[in-house]
């Protein structure tokens, strides 16, 4: 089932109603932190277990586009942390390049990059969280979600309606020094805890980026965000992340997540 706003809004609303009726106690008055926990548990991008074939479509302000195709395989190894291996298939110049990330609870993530031209993988270290992931508008911080896990303050603001859906309005102040954002604003659907929209701000309270969910899909009983758009507001650059194929049940062996495996084309 694939849905996108607003044409399939009715189906989504029905699903939302069903979901809401199934969990009345939780939806009554959850705190901001509880809502964020639910958002994280949902793993709507499918990056913490399973396999997805996906595309990044990058657009500049003139509307010129570039596409990066990839397959991401992941597994939880120390919940909520995970290991993931991303292998690029397009464009041709990037085909075969791979990225392995092993999230660690108390330390920096282990990251390895394989560039086929160099024929070997390299460990990547340093303060990468502010850096864009493979030239997209998503930063490493946007993808690792640590800023939602390690927070200084989570505030639930008055609920709002967004695209006909009732949403929790949450403000998160990240605790980490290396966070690229001073504040995050999330609009989370009350019915299924999918973040419909999030806006990230810098220290001068200027909005830097906006993530807008454009399509969701329910696979194996889980909701996935199958199409989302991250916009960098200063330069009107944007990246659409499209999940084309989702295998939420794929059991990926732990030994796949090694530098040696990364080097296998």
């Amino acid at each position, binding site marked *: 089932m694939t849905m996108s706003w607003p044409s399939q809004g009715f189906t989504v609303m029905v699903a939302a109603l069903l979901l809401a009726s199934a969990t009345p106690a939780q939806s009554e008055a959850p705190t901001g932190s509880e809502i964020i926990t639910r958002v994280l548990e949902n793993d709507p991008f499918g990056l913490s277990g399973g396999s997805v074939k996906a595309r990044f479509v*990058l657009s500049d302000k003139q509307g010129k586009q570039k596409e990066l195709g990839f397959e991401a395989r992941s597994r939880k190894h120390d919940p909520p942390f995970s290991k993931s291996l991303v292998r690029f298939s397009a464009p041709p110049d*990037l085909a075969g390049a791979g990225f392995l990330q092993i999230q660690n609870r108390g330390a920096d993530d282990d990251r390895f*990059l394989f560039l086929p*031209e160099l024929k070997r993988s*390299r460990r990547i270290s340093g303060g*990468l969280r502010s850096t864009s992931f493979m030239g997209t508008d998503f930063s490493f911080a946007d993808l690792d979600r640590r800023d939602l896990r390690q927070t200084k303050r989570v505030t639930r603001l008055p609920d709002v309606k967004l695209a006909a859906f009732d949403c929790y309005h949450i403000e998160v102040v990240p605790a980490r020094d290396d966070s690229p954002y001073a504040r995050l604003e999330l609009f989370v659907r009350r019915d299924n805890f999918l973040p419909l929209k999030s806006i990230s701000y810098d*220290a*001068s309270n200027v909005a830097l980026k906006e993530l807008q969910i454009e399509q969701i899909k329910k696979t194996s009983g889980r909701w996935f965000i199958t199409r989302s758009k991250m916009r960098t507001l200063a330069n009107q*650059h944007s990246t659409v992340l499209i999940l084309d194929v989702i295998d939420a049940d794929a059991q990926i062996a732990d030994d796949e997540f090694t530098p040696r495996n990364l080097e296998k084309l």
Partner: protein
Amino acid sequence: MQRVANPKTVLTAYLRWLLRHRAMMAGILCLSIGLSLASARRIRFQFQFRDFFDYPANVDLPLFRQDNEEFGDPAGNVVVLIEANDLWRPAVLDYVTDITRTLATDAIFSRVQSITTASGIYADGDEVVTGQLLRADADPGRLERVKAYLAQSPLFLRRLLSRDGKATGILAEMRTPATFASVDEQAQAVAAARRAIAKRSPPPGARVTITGAPLVETETTSSLLRDQLTLLPGVILVIVLALLWTFRALHGVLLAISAVTVALIWTTGIFGTFGRPVDILASVIPTTLLVYGVVDPIFVLTRFLEKLDAGRLREDAILESFQELGLPCFVTSLTTAVGFASFVLADAPTVRYYGLTVAIGVLAAWATTMSVLPLLLASVKLPAKRHSALSVTHGIMALLAGTWARVRPRPGLVVLVACTLLIAAGALASRQLVSNQYVGGLPRGQVQDDVRRLEQRLSGVIRLIVHLEGAPGSISQPAALAAMANVQRSIAADPLVTSTTSLADYVAEANQAFSGGDAAMRQVPRSPALVAQYLTLTDLADKAPFVNGDESKAHIAVLVADHGSAASRALAERLKAAVAEARFEALGLEATVTGNGIVAYRELDHVVHVLLWGFVSAFTMILLIEAVLFRSLRLALLTLLPNLLPVAVCFLVVRALGKPLKIENTLVASISIGGLFNTTIHLVARVAQQVQSGETEIDLAISRALSSVGPASLYTAAILSLGFAVLGLSRFPGLQTLGLLSAVTLVFGFFADVTVTPALLKLLVRPRLQPGVAHLEEVAP
């Protein structure tokens, strides 16, 4: 056939009408003053480099603007310069971090870079370190590796870190690129930086300075305002002293000052309606108008007092004085106005409005001489006891007679010497270097010193840009990146260049990092796939100042220490040669050299040429006006040599002082032109009038003309010279030179008029050959 009204009759009728309707005219004058003052309130002071090049007809502007919009302004940051013997002490790093964070919280800045936030890529053993370089938890080993990396990376060396490692800059990039930001925005940015450093004391042993291009423009703007607070009282003081010396009475001072003040207020009001700011050119308008505007009232007042002393009734004295002087004053004002009005043809609005305003102001000064002055003369109680400067006048007349006695036997020799001097000076002046300055044009002091220190330690505030454009993806071709690197290599060794950066640096650094740090691998790899992979890895924010989204446009930024437009021109030529050698066109790329070091400087230098051509065209127009008024081309041409000579001498002085031609000192030609022709016109008119009246002895006619016109001309030259010399009090070195040169030119102009003009009159004027000049009268105090 209808008879043409005699100008004298029209003037008399006007004056009678004016004196009959004093109250009404006074009311109209008060109303006009009120309206002018209201309009003047809109005037603001502002100096911006872009005032000279940001106009629609500028063909170089679109690409420069596009490049700024696309990639920002690499030389336009507000820079917090921190100097310390050990920058890497925790206290200093903590300070840098804190100031960086504080600046980042101000919405005026879009990006704040410092050594504590910089992102880069380098090898650490087998590992590739990328992202933010300095982290709070960095161990000493990591810190050393970061230091080593920064010290050899073209992306950071002399951008964030000085070559000796003892100075670092926090670069705060304005949300609106500084080149196209308003002075208010730049002032806000500078104020934000000042607030940030005021909040926290620098660590011991560290010196903190705020500098950068926005400071140049805000400082120049505030200096323009402060300059007026010095120059206006200075000029007024000179005029008051000159008036006191001439009239030896307070009423003489007040009457003349009142007339010129009204003219200045009118002009200020008209300038207010143009919506233009007071820039470096417009800042000399008040001085010019005050000095020129007071000359005619002095002549009229002197003549009026002479008439009173001769026993005329007050009203008759007014009528006779104006009948005699109204038209000559108009002619001299018209020639001055024409000189300035020639600038309305200039491309740059700042030059156009300067010329227009001064032309209007000069005519307004004539208008107030013809309206405010007669009203005051008719209304104000005159002192019973009046003194004149007769003894001084007699002394001047004796001196002039002595000069004429030396010139008279050898007019040919005098003219020959003058011609030789003109040709020699002209030949030297024609080879004069044109070079304007941006930083060098700043008032001497702390701000200029700080910008110079920024240039020495880190980067310059002037930039040259190689803008590249081709098909999507063409920029990321290895050959294109290698060509960019080659251009950078060719130009980087130039002593003017402080830093040069491009996308090729990112690719080369990535290649070195993924090759285990091998310095030999700091180059663009030949594999397109590998280049594409490196570029994919590079952070969007890091790439944004160098390449656009579809990799069809890029630029090479070359930051330069400001040594003036001539040096910048020469460097641009070397850069163009390097670009030509790189053969971008063979790679499908169009390469254009732009940047403020080219676009802005080209316009500033163009203004110099416009001012020189404006002088030539004004000179020609004045000759034509003279030909019409004298009804003699020969008499008009006669005035060429004595008025061209002082200007040539002025340029000779510029050369002797070792200064290049720039806007401020070229302005002297147009400023002086009115003052120069003033004396010549009166002398020629007086001689012609005598010849027309039947005088057959030319020597006698010249002698009489010198004694009647000479003293007044000397007073005029003295007032004009001293008035313009007040510009020597300016904070701006260029305006100081302008003041000196104006004084020299006008004094030399007087000298030429009492030597060369009589010699030419003796050689060229034949009695009874010049009919029809009876309406031009002598002008003598």
